[in-house]
């Protein structure tokens, strides 16, 4: 499929377009946050604590009187950063391990895949909680933990693509013509593995944002006063009876961003991998 065909198909996909619009909305908030936000997200105003939505504060104020809208806007930056960095942390080692495992097979494949099975033996959130607790709760460690948890997923996807590509005629021809392993892997196999990797990475951004927010909610992610959406929800939980808006808005923001990535990922999958096309 040419790039032009791909973009034409993407433009026709309602789900991809809707997802893209939602993602762009959050990216714009993240980029222009300091100019859009009506107030300083970290500035407490004790006199206006836990106020509901009003003309002055569209999303209300939190327990320290900070403007919730500004905190949600600044939180977009953190959530997008978490998504990108976590996915990169899982994508690079996952791809390398998958390439090695699928291409060389035999003992290397066995060792790598058994290690991946071990990581997959834990429920994802539990492993992330465990790693974060060991590394000490912080935003950086959250991204590392979420990244490590999803390495096996990429390794498996890449491995299965490599296994099918390895037997293809063009790869065997290059091998017979004297092409080295590194050249075959990087110049011929990797580019052909990209479509499933791109689809999974897009869907993975949503998952990473969700997992990181869950860690933040449990108090293991970004620490106060950082306006991370999960941590804001955790604070909102204490005031759910008095001021439900403190939990409502950050949660809705997480939902919109994750929904955006999932819609876009679904659309991309339909375009890049027609064999998986949903009916």
């Amino acid at each position, binding site marked *: 499929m040419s790039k032009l065909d791909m973009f034409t198909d993407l433009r026709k996909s309602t*789900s991809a377009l809707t997802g893209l619009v939602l993602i762009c909305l959050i990216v714009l908030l993240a980029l222009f946050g300091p100019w859009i936000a009506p107030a300083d997200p970290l500035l407490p105003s004790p006199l206006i604590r836990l106020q509901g939505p009003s003309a002055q504060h569209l999303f209300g104020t939190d327990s320290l009187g900070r403007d919730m809208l500004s905190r949600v806007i600044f939180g977009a930056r953190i959530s997008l950063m978490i998504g990108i960095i976590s996915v990169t942390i899982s994508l690079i080692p996952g791809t390398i391990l998958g390439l090695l495992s699928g291409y060389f097979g035999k003992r290397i494949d066995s060792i790598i895949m*058994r*290690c991946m*099975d*071990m990581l997959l*033996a*834990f*429920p*994802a*959130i*539990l492993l992330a*909680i*465990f*790693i974060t*607790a*060991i590394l*000490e709760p912080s935003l950086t460690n959250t991204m590392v933990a979420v990244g490590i948890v999803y390495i096996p997923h990429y390794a498996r996807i890449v491995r299965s693509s490599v296994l099918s590509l390895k037997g293809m005629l063009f790869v065997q021809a290059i091998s017979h013509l004297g092409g080295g392993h590194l050249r075959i892997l990087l110049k011929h196999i990797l580019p052909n593995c990209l479509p499933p990797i791109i689809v999974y990475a897009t869907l993975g951004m*949503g998952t990473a944002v*969700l997992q990181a*927010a*869950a860690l933040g*909610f*449990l*108090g293991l992610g970004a620490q106060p006063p950082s306006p991370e959406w*999960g941590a804001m*929800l955790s604070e*909102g*939980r204490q005031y*759910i*009876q008095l001021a*439900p808006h403190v*939990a*409502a808005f*950050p*949660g*809705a923001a*997480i*939902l919109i961003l*994750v*929904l955006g*990535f*999932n*819609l876009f990922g*679904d659309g991309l999958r339909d375009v890049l991998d027609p064999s998986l096309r*949903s*009916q």
Partner: protein
Amino acid sequence: MTLGYISKRLFHLALIMFGVSVVVFLMLRMIPGDPAQLLLGEFASPEELERLREQLGLNQSLFTQFWIYISNIVQGDLGHSVRTNAPVTGEIWVRLIATLELSLAAMCIATVFGIAAGVLSAVKQYSLWDYGAMFMALVGVSMPIFWLGLMLIYLFAVKYPVLPMMGRISLGLEVPDVTGLMVVDAVVAGNWQSLVSALKHLILPAFTLATIPMAIVARITRSAMLEVLNMDYVRTARAKGMTELVVILRHALRNAFLPVVTVLGLNLGLLLGGAVLTETIFSWPGLGRYVVDSLSGRDYAAVQGCILVFALLMAAINLAVDLIYVLLDPRIRVNE
């Protein structure tokens, strides 16, 4: 399916569990700082610290520590909780039953509503029902369940107080401990007041936990049904004059069930992960909440035990799903 295949898979499971035990052991030893100091606090005397180190076996070599740890696990001894001083195995067992009750209830909800939505979507493809159900399924998959739980608490326990917001049963009510599953025990005891209370306490957390699996089941059911509805035998059934309901339920759904069963099984693992968050929100006294509490209380024996139990459950579920799949579909032959 042969005995050889099953024993091979069981050996594989044992190997993974051994690997998991090694990973958990090493990771807990990687935690910075002296565990004795962490447990006793910064004002502990050197003698007290030394005594605790001796008691926990921290003075021995890493290999000896690992040997003791593995020997104890094999004998079902997961150590003692530093917070309650009770054996971790017993503590985990009580909580595991609570988690099981919640997970089973969530699974029932996910199965019933997920399959119903999926069938409706497939039968009325490209209708408003189809778009609506599939959009809701997509929202469900993207849902931060810890947020949904809070919103449900606000709506049904605070604004319109019709359901309780935490715990497993109302204060003052009791059921005899037969199976540990409150609902079952209340039925066995014929205590209807307790049964109603237990069911009411179950609704919100079970719905919260069921959201993501329900959405996945709906999507899988729809695509499996669409595939089956185009088959010749469905057309034949219609041509024979059978009612649409019989065609859908008896002929189509039965054959579309295979991928759904697989997804249901795999979702059990997802439920275990989701239980960590749901139990924390609803103060449900299960394994998920126990592991979070143990981590914040630096009760590493408890954390270690919980993680091993979770990993064992996940591996056992995956194995069971594979075996059931082969049993259900005779066309699948195991590659030995």
